[in-house]
């Protein structure tokens, strides 16, 4: 694991660091129901946590950041690129890991699924194979390359989902509750994986321990950001507020 991490750093040197995501006056609705109201933020920190009760709008917020959701009002800029008009470029920069890896793995076998993203980006086959190989080794999936994805354990599936995003070489990765469906051991494992990433990360979560060492935490409530600061300030406040 430790040796893998050093390899990470070397591989990541090729990745342009730091992204800046600007969220301007965003509001969004499902039907007539507002899910986000008056959200304006600039995200530049390496590790940003997003917490809040179910239905507080944090999942929709996460989906704004790579253009999966286009806001009804306002705009989202990633390094100056508008998600509304430059979705393709935005998705190259910002990767997305879903809560349920089963919803993210689209190909029947491990290796095939990992190659899916780079293939869509038009990355050459040899380069794709090289990146896939690197990720298979890094996440201990090398012995499973031909295995059907549904036979992997929950933790392995989530690692595969993360690897499937990393092979696309994004600069920032948005995680939408990546550990909600995992047991304690796998939660810790995914947490370590996130810590070790060279990429910037935005992590939406209910697991507050995940936020140790984060640079910034946003607290959502009823579609608004009600607290924004270091984990030391926001997490205890949030816990107290939840009663």
């Amino acid at each position: 694991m430790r040796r893998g991490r050093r390899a990470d750093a070397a591989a990541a040197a090729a990745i342009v660091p730091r992204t800046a995501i600007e969220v301007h006056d965003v509001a969004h609705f499902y039907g007539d129901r507002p899910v986000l109201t008056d959200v304006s933020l600039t995200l530049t920190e390496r590790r940003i946590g997003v917490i809040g009760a179910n239905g507080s709008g944090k999942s929709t917020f996460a989906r704004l950041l790579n253009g999966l959701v286009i806001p009804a009002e306002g705009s989202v800029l990633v390094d100056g690129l508008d998600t509304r008009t430059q979705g393709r470029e935005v998705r190259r920069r910002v990767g997305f890991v879903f809560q349920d890896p089963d919803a993210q793995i689209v190909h029947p076998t491990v290796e095939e699924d990992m190659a899916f993203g780079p293939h869509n980006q038009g990355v050459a086959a040899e380069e794709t194979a090289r990146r896939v190989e690197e990720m298979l080794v890094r996440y201990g999936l090398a012995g499973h390359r031909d295995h059907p994805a549904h036979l992997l354990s929950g933790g392995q599936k989530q690692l595969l989902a993360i690897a499937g995003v990393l092979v696309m070489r994004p600069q920032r990765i948005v995680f939408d509750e990546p550990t909600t469906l995992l047991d304690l051991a796998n939660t810790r494992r995914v947490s370590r994986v996130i810590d070790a990433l060279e990429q910037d990360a935005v992590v939406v979560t209910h697991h507050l321990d995940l936020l140790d060492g984060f640079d910034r935490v946003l607290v959502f409530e009823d579609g608004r950001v009600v607290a924004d600061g270091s984990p030391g300030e926001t997490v205890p406040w949030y816990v107290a507020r939840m009663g």
Partner: protein
Amino acid sequence: MKTKDLAYIALFAAIMAVLGLLPPVPVPGIPVPITAQTLGVMLAGSVLGARRGGLALLVFLAVVAVGLPVLSGGRGGLAVFVGPSAGFLYSWPIAAFVIGLLTELFWRRYNLAWALVANLIGGVLVIYAIGIPFLSLFGDVPLSTAFTGSMAFVPGDLVKAVAASLVAVAVHKAYPVIELPARRATAG
């Protein structure tokens, strides 16, 4: 077509395959197996609508052709496309398309009765209109024999049409997938 639609199409092709894993009911005397899969044909059309429903069935047949044993009774491969009952297979995408077309047509007043009309026309009438002549041609039996022989399956199909309609109406209430352009604007 949106990427989401690709996922829906794949989903119903997969549902067809899972229905094919249910144990078959072999009926001696006629080379057409009783299958829970026509239920899947009806659901694909009723839930996804014409275009996506028809495509889901085409994809399912492609998966069968590629050699996965996902046709009821664990059959698969190219062989099933040349047997006497192959006409019933070929009718499925068309049936799903017709059911979907009728469902979209009835969409504004969609209820159990209209669902049943769509499923009976598309899921029973269309399937037999294609399957029976094919059976007669490839099974080398007179059309009338093919017809009377196939009639044995009609009661089962009527039951399936009722089941599919009940499910379709409930699914539309809980999670509608068909979006008509006009309706879309109000649903936002």
